């Protein structure tokens, strides 16, 4: 059995699976039940001046039979008084001293406000803080959350204010609603952050009702943008984690959040540089018990790979993530159809014919049956046919021996001044 414990920026946790700051971590009752179920840590629902919420506030985007492929919300931070949350954090920590409790915080961008909340919350024994610079709705209209998180100077300053008084590590949670997340990540590091976490939710409108013409969700016939999360956002979150992980100026641990639904997702985030993961939507969809499978799956995976600990996994794919300009222009793959497994549904042919490179030929065999064959010389290896193919293994993408590697950057250098020993003096 591998060692699942992590030491994330000095915060010790029995495993890398934390509940993200959200409805699942709203109360001591819930967090304690989550710890009993096996979660290694919980980031408490964001503390701040107690707010009020609206009804309704969630929407699911269901896709092709999968419920909650995406999830949208217009909920704000905690609506419970600080005193009550602090009492419950204290009790929960006492009952589960080895589990991780992080307090998520959000206050106005004023030094005294940050000092006050950090001191009050630290006194009940949290393992660290997470500064919420990500909430895209409601709080942002009051200059908090994403409104702060979109301005690098404010991220830096507020991180500094929290760090001025915090004795435990400070994680800065970033908004994805920004052009370049490394800019705010860097600002957090400049402000003294011990770690960063990403992503919070993405600005979204889940849908519009075709009968009533109301937005989904709506509040008495009116809607507002919400935050998007769940499986649909994983590729966006993974990219943002990877961009920060490969940036040498952002030299702090990363907590990966956004669409983590099972152990495989968690491993992907960790391979791309996350020191641990946080989960919200999957827990809201299936309940706390999903962590059992996450723990077992990760354990088996590490054993299969011959790794002793989670830490041996972290960042292993980061060197493989680069810029387009570093990719080899001479690398070539082509599609090959396995007639044994192909069910002749014709999807690949249509995709290639209509929207790719017209290189899947429909041929007739001697026995009169039809079969498909890729005209490999014209195939650009775009992958489309294998993506649309409904049968696993019916299309393989095969690597073709090619010329020696040359990247776009090398090409740019080469064609600028093609030095070939011939004088151009005419």
């Amino acid at each position: 059995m591998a060692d699942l414990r992590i030491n994330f920026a000095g915060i010790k946790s029995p495993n890398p699976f934390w509940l993200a700051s959200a409805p699942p971590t709203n109360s001591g009752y819930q967090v304690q039940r989550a710890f009993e179920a096996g979660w290694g840590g919980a980031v408490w629902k964001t503390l701040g001046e107690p707010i009020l919420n609206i009804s309704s506030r969630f929407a699911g985007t269901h896709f092709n039979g999968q419920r909650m492929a995406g999830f949208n919300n217009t909920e704000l931070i905690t609506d419970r008084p600080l005193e009550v949350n602090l009492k419950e954090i204290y009790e929960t920590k006492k009952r589960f001293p080895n589990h991780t409790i992080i307090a998520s915080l959000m206050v106005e961008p004023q030094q005294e406000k940050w000092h006050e909340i950090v001191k009050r919350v630290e006194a009940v024994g949290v393992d660290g803080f997470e500064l919420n610079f990500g909430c895209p709705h409601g709080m942002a209209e009051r200059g908090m959350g994403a409104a702060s998180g979109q301005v690098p100077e404010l991220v830096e300053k507020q991180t500094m204010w929290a760090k001025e008084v915090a004795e435990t590590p400070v994680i800065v949670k970033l908004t994805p609603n920004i052009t370049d997340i490394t800019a705010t990540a860097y600002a957090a590091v400049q402000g003294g952050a011990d770690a960063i976490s990403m992503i919070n939710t993405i600005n979204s409108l889940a849908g519009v009702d075709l009968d009533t013409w109301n937005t989904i969700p709506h509040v008495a016939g009116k809607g507002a943008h919400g935050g998007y999360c769940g499986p649909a956002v994983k590729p966006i979150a993974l990219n943002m984690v990877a961009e920060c992980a490969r940036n040498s100026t952002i030299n702090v641990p990363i907590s990966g959040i956004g669409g983590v639904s099972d152990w495989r997702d968690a491993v992907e985030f960790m391979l791309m540089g996350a020191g641990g993961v946080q989960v919200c939507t999957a827990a809201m969809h299936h309940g706390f018990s999903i962590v059992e499978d996450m723990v077992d799956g990760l354990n088996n995976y590490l054993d299969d790979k011959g790794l002793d600990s989670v830490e041996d996994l972290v960042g292993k794919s980061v060197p493989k993530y680069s810029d387009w300009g570093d990719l080899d222009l001479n690398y070539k793959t082509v599609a090959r159809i396995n007639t044994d497994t192909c069910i002749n549904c014709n999807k690949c042919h249509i995709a290639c014919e209509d929207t790719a490179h017209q290189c899947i030929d429909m041929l007739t065999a001697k026995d009169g049956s039809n079969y498909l064959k890729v005209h490999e010389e014209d195939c650009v290896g775009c992958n489309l046919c294998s993506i649309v193919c409904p049968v696993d293994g019916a299309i393989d993408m095969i690597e073709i021996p090619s010329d020696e590697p040359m990247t776009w950057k090398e090409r740019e250098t080469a064609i600028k001044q093609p030095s070939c020993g011939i004088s151009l003096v005419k």
Partner: protein
Amino acid sequence: MERPMSHHKEFLGEKEKIDNLYSKGYRITAVNETLSGAFVEFSRITEEKELETEELQLLNPDTRIYFSTLIHKQQKAQ
């Protein structure tokens, strides 16, 4: 609608032109990439020590990789 010419056949045609110039001792001396394709200048020094120049307009993306690889190799070899 008639299908466009096979991408690969177009590449082979352009590659042949490049290889032909190469076999005659021409080497790429300038590249000018425009909206109308890449204009690639080939030069050679004749036995009479004269500079001869040819230009090809190359349209195919695989040819653009091909001639760039030739230059890249040339430069690496020097």
